[in-house]
């Protein structure tokens, strides 16, 4: 996997680089800001771009804006945004684009899961931080449909929202893929969602349901 990193803090940038390299991936470019990101992508043709959401000069949402630009120029390219804090609306909007990840920075310490998310995003899947998903679910506390789910089904729903595939969920929950498939079917039926393939459309449907009380997806 060829990776481009844009992160203003030197130590973190280096740490991320080492993390990917330790896993056998290739870091083709490391940038200190969002400037020159498009040029670097054009030059190195990476599989994945990892960027910090807050970068110079204003330290507000340079990363998010750069991510959108990258997505517009290269819709097939995976983009993983790292953030310092939970920002639901923004995150859900970005993830709905597909081939997109939104993770809190401290996820990098769980190296295995982080790399799995990165790979999923690079392959066109999505990755939404569990804390964001949790906040979406808790925002739907009054939802009777969610209340009908069993505890296990709820876990499955959250992992679906995070962007995991059936295989990924099975692995995470130490269950067989077949069991997960059954859970997924139940969840989708209970929530009146179309029983679609294992993929981005399913993630979209789940997110749309979860964020219905919030602003609609654009």
């Amino acid at each position, binding site marked *: 996997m060829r990776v481009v990193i844009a992160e203003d803090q030197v130590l973190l940038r280096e740490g991320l680089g080492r*993390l990917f390299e330790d896993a056998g991936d290739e870091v083709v470019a490391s940038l200190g800001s969002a400037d020159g990101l498009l040029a670097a992508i054009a030059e190195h043709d990476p599989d994945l771009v990892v960027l910090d959401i807050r970068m110079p000069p204003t330290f507000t949402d340079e990363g998010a804006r750069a991510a959108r630009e990258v997505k517009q120029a290269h819709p097939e390219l995976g983009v993983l945004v790292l953030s310092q804090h939970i920002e639901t609306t923004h995150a859900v909007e970005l993830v709905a684009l597909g081939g997109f990840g939104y993770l809190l920075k401290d996820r990098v310490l769980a190296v295995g899961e982080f790399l799995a998310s990165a790979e999923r995003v690079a392959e066109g899947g999505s990755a939404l931080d569990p804390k964001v998903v949790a906040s979406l679910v808790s925002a739907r506390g009054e939802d009777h449909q969610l209340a009908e789910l069993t505890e296990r089904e709820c876990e499955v729903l959250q992992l679906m929202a995070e962007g995991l595939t059936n295989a990924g969920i099975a692995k995470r929950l130490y269950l067989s893929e077949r069991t997960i498939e059954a859970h997924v079917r139940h969840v989708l039926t209970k929530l009146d969602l179309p029983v679609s393939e294992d993929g981005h459309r399913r993630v979209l449907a789940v997110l749309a349901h979860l964020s219905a009380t919030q602003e609609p997806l654009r």
Partner: protein
Amino acid sequence: MDEHASAQAAARGDRGDSAAWAQVGRVARGGQLTARRIAALIWGLCLVIALAALALLAIGPGRVLPSDVFSGVGGMSFLVLAMTFASVGVLVARRVPESRIGWIFLLTGLANCVQLLTWQYADVGLHATDLLPGASAAAVFNSVISEATAGLLGLSLLLFPDGRLPSRRWRPALASLFVGMALLVLTGTIRPGRYAEPFAQVSNPFGVSGARGVIDGVDFAGWLFVIAGIGLGAAAMVVRLRRARGIERQQLELVLVVGSVAATVAALVMATWLVWPTGHLQMRIALLGLCFASVPLAAGVGILRYRLYEIDLVVNRTLVYVALTVILAAAFAVTVVLLGTLLGRGSGWATAAATLVVAVAFRPLRARLQDVVDRRFNRARYDALRRVANFLEDLRAGRATPEEVEPVLREVLSDPRLELLFFLPESELYVDARGVPVSDIPDDGRERIPVERGGQPLGVVLHDPATQDNPILLRRVVEAGGLAIEIARLHVALRRQLAEVEASRARIVAAGNEERRRLERDLHDGAQQRLVSIGLALRHAQHELSTSSPERARHTLDGALAEVALSIDELRELAHGLPPAQLDAGLGPALRELARRVPARVEVKAPGERFDRGVETAAYFIACEGLTNAVKHADATRIVLSAGRENGKLVVSVSDDGAGGATPTPGSGLSGLADRVAAYGGSLRIESDRGAGTTLVAELPCGS
């Protein structure tokens, strides 16, 4: 202001006036002191003459002739007339020596006094006693001047109220008067033969005999000139009235109204000569004299602007009651005549019925007349005051808001540029109806009318004097609107205070939010990121240990440890903005600790006493901000920092010897400080004259 205006008038020169008055003008310009002394001298002379005439009058001619018009009460009343002229003249001449009108009045008084004295002297000398020498000469002199003195009246009319002609074109009127008076003096001098009664025993020593017919013709011509001059004088008054605005208009109105009433009464009195040629002659003469005396009196009041504002009302009431008297008298007469014809002459019933009619008609008629007079003669005031009264009524009934007083004043005074500014005593500011402070009132020719209630200034009305020529109306309207203005002012003051409180609260919240944002960012971008990178380094070390390079792992772990040390430093920095731990030991130790960190000599005076923790924290931050300002902006080298209890308040003061000139601009540290102090219900005072250092005093309530 009177003197200023008159001086301006004098400076404009004596265009269109005769040389005689230029002489008086020169005297006036030669020195006001001299002029005032001369005026007093002339008046004293008049008084002496008048007293002498009065003494002769008391002696009397010793016999009664119908032609003794100036004996007894008749003479006395004319002495009053002469002295009125002289007294008004001296008052005006002393107050405004540049104005010729005072001198003309003085001269008129003097001429009349001389005329009366010579008359009394001749009358007494010829008829009562032989002790007075030169009685015949007095009779001759009296005859020379008596006719000409009438012309002086025309002079007053022509030159009232500023002592100048309305324009150069009026010069012929002046010439006509002088020619007429000269002719009358001439004919008085050379008319041959014996004089008329009561001086019939004296014959004119200067008489030119044989020319009687010519002299009578010249006399007639002289009268024509004088009457023309007087007529033109009256016309000049009317012309002036048309042009006049403001004060001058009031002066003219006053004199014209009084003059008209006097003329009417005089005409009625003279008409009695046609009905009763004899009898009560002196009484009638006396009435005439008093009538005439009212005119110079009115003129004096007008010129000296003595309570001119009330004159309006006096004129108004005079008109109402004169008309009322005439109408009621007519009604009485008509009723008596009609009923008398019906019931037979001398019927008591007729008189009783007429009285009843008058009694019943009095009140409604008076109200009706008042209304008519108000409408006809003072339409503007009538409408304006009614409109203001209606507005106040609406205000009481809650149909109008007090803020509408400004539009109402605009409408009533037909001045679209009129502005009402409220005075806020606590901040000593003028603000408009929206509460926006007006730092300096524009000097654009608009008149400033202060509004007061109970001696307290409420505000000021800025008004264009060109749109309104009636200062009384203006004053009355503003006075009438006083209550509404006061309420509006209270509203404005209250709204301003509320806005100030709201703004201050918003600033406190914003400052709090900003502080939170700063903390959050510092934590996210600093400590949190560092911890993440430390975690990454540890993971990497883990990886290195498992892939057989422990040397490199040691290196990675060293880096991680260095990061941990940096994180600790960063967190300590962050905690700096929070209430310091030193406050645990009290305000005094905390302030001393604070002073040690400042690169300047700081003297700390603080007690060991403990206060509420919140108040101590506020005091600590005030001291911080004050010290920061002193060091950063004022380049201070010596700073005194003190904190202590005074009258139940914790008073914190920071004074330095720096540049001074500090002002709390929005968003500045000082402004934030003021808000912080206000949040604790305290007050902040900044004394910072440029070059004199800065003293910052905050008073925080701290309970008992």
